[in-house]
């Protein structure tokens, strides 16, 4: 159990610190690389939740495709040494609202499940779904077959949209 707690702390740290540095870092490419670190943390958290398939997909699609897309977009649209100084007169208001929202979200997630006094435990479940279960659920008529097909339509729409926007005429 100790190892799992330790792993949980490490992966959460990756995810949170990575996400924080994405926003704080001055260099856009550094932000993209910190995003990769954050996604790694999320993949680790998936493993801790007994979802290795999702963890591998996280690495394959998010880090192997989406992060590369983001880095392409960042590198292709500005010069390599661009550093931007944020200038925003209402940044204090944004900070206050952000902090209030954060506290509200965290309280809304933790309190209903664990109450005020108990120590949070890692979720354990006896029923561990395998990839085969995911496969059957995805295409069975009383499963998720409709979202499955709608997802393919969504992907088609995304591709068509990207091509239409990117074409020269």
């Amino acid at each position: 159990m100790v190892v799992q707690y330790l792993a949980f702390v490490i992966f959460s740290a990756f995810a949170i610190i990575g996400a924080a540095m994405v926003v704080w870092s001055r260099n856009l490419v550094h932000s993209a690389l910190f995003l990769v670190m954050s996604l790694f943390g999320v993949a680790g958290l998936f493993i801790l939740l007994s979802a290795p398939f999702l963890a591998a997909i996280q690495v394959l699609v998010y880090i192997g495709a989406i992060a590369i897309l983001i880095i392409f977009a960042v590198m292709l649209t500005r010069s390599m040494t661009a550093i931007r100084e944020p200038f925003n007169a209402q940044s204090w208001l944004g900070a206050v609202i952000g902090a209030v929202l954060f506290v509200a979200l965290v309280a809304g997630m933790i309190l209903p499940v664990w109450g005020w006094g108990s120590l949070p435990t890692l979720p354990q479940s006896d029923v561990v779904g395998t990839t085969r279960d995911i496969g059957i659920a995805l295409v069975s008529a009383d499963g998720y077959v409709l979202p499955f097909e709608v997802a393919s339509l969504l992907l088609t729409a995304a591709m068509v949209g990207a091509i239409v926007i990117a074409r020269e005429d």
Partner: protein
Amino acid sequence: MNILNQWGPIGLFMVFAIVLPAAPILVAAIFAPRKPNDIKLQTYECGVETVGDTWVQFKVQYYIYAIVFLVFDVEMIFLLPWAIAFNELSFFAFGAGFLFIFLLTDALVYAWRKQALEWH
């Protein structure tokens, strides 16, 4: 715990995978000579001095390839569980997978016809 049995060693693997390549670099850092001078430190540009900021021309083709790859990547991760559960699928489920593949082939044909896959 089942996860720990399988993924604990993978965690150890990651540690080794990072330490093992780092070792020769550290050894080289200790043993290699270090004589920096201005000319050696300049960016390489076939022997000519660099002029101006380093930037790359925006070529939309890279972006299109990445997007088409992304769409196909997501398609593949949907098809993987389908392929694993294949033996137990009814014809309906099997047909659902077919429809999925057909819709994405449609997208590929669109990209082909609109000449989005050409390298200019």
